[in-house]
């Protein structure tokens, strides 16, 4: 309490340093605001509002907002104007300019400054004009958005003034839209209106389309045909953008599939091992991320933005280690019996799931997005979220690194040799069991880092892996075994295919159709899109 009052005193003292400058302006504004008390009718109030707006001082926005809400009162005794947000018998008073508390008064002692709808509109315009002059670009953007959504002829001068001094591209774009739509409903010349339609066409967003459609319905003559032409053009453009958006969603889904499937492609392709516990390796990676974030949150919160980068190597190691134990402990004994491997790894997946459930509980764990991964940006009419974009980039990086490892390192060479002909590779002196173990570690480790990425867009729960396992098998089988490019093409095309079906068939039916498509596809090409060609009868 004591400290608070000292703080308040300090603040007042600080403010008083600037007082001479501030006071001169504030006094003028106060004088204008006090006129509300003596206003006889709406027209006079409107004149006061306009006068306030013309000062161009953003600090009057508060009192204007309050006026529009009907919470500006004046004291009958001394015609002092206050903002009174509350209700009841005794009301708290606030200074209209500074917003500081200014004592209390009984309801009977106060009188409301009356407003009607016409007045409210001019108040809104005034605020729009004021906030358009704000220093803060995001405030200007909000104002421009409001004006673009509710075009207003009277705001036109303010918009044009703001447009001239606007430096931010995004805001300027919105302002142009607001200007164009306002011009169309104004009584300006045909030429101006034609230009405005052209501006709208160039902007080509949904809002412009909606506005033009409304405009076309009541326009006549040349403008009507012009608007109609603009509408068809915008519609065509939007359709293209919509397809672009679908492609983006598809590619984004494809990148997730790619991440989940690529480790599987390695183990399945090289070793012919069906690792049903692959999804659980992904889950372990996600839980590693969760643990890393927990530790960072509790001990060094300033590292939060780095949490994913710290989690990446750890997740790789955790999953690779589990993979190594799995390979040495179980799979090693089952080589050449793929169906048995499938069952045993399924058992392992059940154990891992239950272990995580016992340790961390069955509910979803919270994994947060680092600041650089949250938010979104717009590309034309496409909205792209940063986390999806980063996951796409990350998936492609992982793919590139793997491709390099496969083609340029000696381990990669050995892996390829074992994939193509195990016995021959063995005869050439490659230690195939060793290669198997390393391959399995690599595949599991990749699943682990996939888990880090998927923790950003999916629920981190013990069932995380289950939801990916069937999809990733589909990708591998579709793309063709033993070929990384096949996995890339398979993942991306299944992702895009899925997202293009969704608008027509719905999410679930789309997924079913994809599954049916893959089942049929395998009949046609039992070895996938990019099969290794060979002459053996039984593979």
């Amino acid at each position, binding site marked *: 309490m004591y400290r608070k009052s000292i703080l308040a005193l300090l603040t007042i003292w600080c403010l008083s340093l600037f007082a001479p400058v501030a006071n001169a302006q504030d006094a003028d504004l106060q004088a204008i605001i006090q006129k509300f008390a003596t206003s006889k009718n709406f027209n006079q109030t409107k004149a006061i509002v306009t006068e306030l707006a013309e000062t161009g001082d953003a600090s009057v926005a508060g009192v204007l907002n309050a006026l529009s809400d009907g919470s500006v009162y004046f004291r009958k005794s001394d015609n002092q104007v206050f903002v009174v947000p509350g209700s009841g018998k005794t009301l708290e008073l606030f200074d209209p300019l500074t917003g500081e508390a200014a004592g209390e008064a009984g309801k009977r002692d106060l009188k409301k400054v009356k407003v009607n709808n016409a007045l409210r509109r001019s108040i809104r315009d005034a605020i729009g004009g004021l906030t358009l002059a704000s220093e803060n670009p995001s405030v200007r953007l909000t104002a421009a958005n409001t004006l673009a959504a509710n075009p207003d002829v009277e705001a036109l001068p303010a918009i044009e003034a703001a447009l001239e001094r606007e430096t931010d591209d995004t805001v300027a774009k919105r302002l142009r839209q607001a200007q164009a739509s306002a011009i169309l409903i104004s009584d300006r010349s045909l030429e101006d209106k034609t230009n405005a339609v052209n501006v709208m066409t160039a902007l080509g967003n949904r809002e412009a389309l909606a506005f033009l459609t409304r405009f076309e319905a009541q326009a006549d003559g040349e403008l009507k045909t012009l608007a109609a032409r603009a509408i068809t053009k915008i519609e065509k453009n939007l359709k293209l953008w919509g397809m672009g958006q679908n492609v983006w969603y598809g590619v984004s889904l494809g990148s997730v599939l790619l991440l989940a499937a690529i480790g599987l492609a390695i183990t399945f392709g090289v070793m012919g091992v069906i690792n049903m516990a692959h999804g659980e390796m992904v889950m372990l990676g996600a839980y590693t991320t969760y643990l890393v974030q927990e530790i960072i949150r509790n001990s060094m919160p300033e590292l939060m933005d780095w949490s994913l980068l710290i989690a990446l190597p750890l997740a790789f190691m955790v999953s690779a280690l589990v993979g190594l134990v799995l390979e040495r402990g179980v799979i090693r004994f089952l080589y050449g019996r793929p169906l048995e491997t499938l069952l045993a790894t399924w058992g392992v997946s059940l154990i891992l799931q239950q272990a995580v459930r016992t340790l961390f509980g069955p509910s979803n764990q919270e994994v947060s997005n680092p600041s650089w991964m949250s938010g979104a940006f717009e590309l034309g009419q496409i909205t792209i979220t940063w986390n999806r974009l980063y996951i796409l980039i990350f998936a492609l990086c992982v793919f590139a690194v793997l491709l390099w490892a496969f083609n340029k390192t000696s381990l990669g060479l050995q892996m390829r040799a074992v994939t193509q002909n195990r016995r021959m590779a063995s005869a050439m002196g490659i230690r195939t069991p060793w290669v198997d173990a390393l391959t399995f570690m690599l595949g599991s480790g990749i699943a682990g880092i996939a888990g880090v990425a998927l923790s950003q867009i999916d629920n981190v729960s013990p069932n995380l892996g289950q939801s990916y396992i069937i999809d990733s098998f589909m990708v591998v089988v579709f793309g063709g075994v033993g070929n990384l490019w096949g996995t890339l093409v398979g993942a991306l095309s299944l992702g895009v295919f899925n997202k293009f079906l969704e608008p027509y068939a719905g999410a679930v039916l789309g997924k079913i159709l994809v599954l049916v498509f893959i089942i*049929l596809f395998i009949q046609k090409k039992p070895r996938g899109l990019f099969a290794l060609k060979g002459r053996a009868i039984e593979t």
Partner: protein
Amino acid sequence: MILTHFLKKGLTWPITLTILIILAIAVAVPFSNLYLDPAHPLHVPNHLVGLFGKYLTYALLALALDLVWGYCGILSLGHGAFFALGGYAMGMYLMRQIGSRGVYGDPVLPDFMVFLNWQELPWFWYGFDQFWFAALMIILVPGGLAFIFGWFAFRSRVTGVYLSIITQAMTYALLLAFFRNDMGFGGNNGLTDFKDILGYDIQASTTRAGLFSASAIALALGVLITAAITGSQFGKLMIAVRDAESRTRFLGYRPEMVKLFAFVVSAIMAGIAGALYVPQVGIINPGEFAPANSIEVVVWTAVGGRGTIIGPIIGALVVNGGKSWFTGAFPEYWLFALGGLFVLVTLLLPKGIVGTVRDGWAKLRPAKQAPIESDTTQKPADQANSQPQAAE
């Protein structure tokens, strides 16, 4: 044809014994449940009748899987789908029997349709008010699906793990489809709240005892049919396809037809098992299509011993008995136990309980001839594993 040959040739004594035991159970358990005093030590209480009845349908399902996996080398990870389809066909019959006794009292539409504001019965629900039609569908729907699926898959020579994965995809697709409300199968909640079966109250202990007997008799028939098929010339062909498919093809047989036959028969058996399962547990929902369920069936068969007739039955009973006990005693650890079972059985008991016991028995008595079916291991290690040389 196969059956007459089989009956002429005569039943082997283990099969006869198995069938007799099952039939004895079919009589004894209902008798003890209905006519013995509850205090009597041999009295089987109601809930156990339901539980054992459920196990018997599981045993039939495991036997069906064994026919394709153990004898024909097709590892189906989608047999749960056939089971569930049979179950849904029975469920639809039972839904129609509710009539106007549902919550909304609509004489024709099942409750969930009234709830979803459907005005009339979808066409695929027609006829399910008749038991004979439902019974026909219980056979035709799983059998038909298996025929279409197998026709395409086997003719294009999809084998091994690829086949396993697409069977899994099939059951997963059906899972997603049946979850949809617009499919007209009750969506998420499935079909439940049954009242009558063939005019008898489904909750009555006599009906439940009857269902138990029906399950046991179905299982006995399943054993008879499986034994007849596997004991015939055709059964030898199935084993040949399992062990060396290409060689069988080169000898002039058509392996895809052998597989297709086995697959369809097996799917029908699974469908019947599902149809008997539903009235005993009182509900069928899309969860039965879950890929995990189908894989669990595989482990029952593996535990008991695939490539044997008694094995899957024993496996289904042992694993499910264990599950009931485990989930009661230590619910936390059941998945550990099941997962461990998967690993241990594949590593240590590749032939299952029955196969291992029989091998031990054969070693003790070397004079007896070794049965053919015992060879369950797959192709030699490297053949299945290595890919052919790539054409550069």
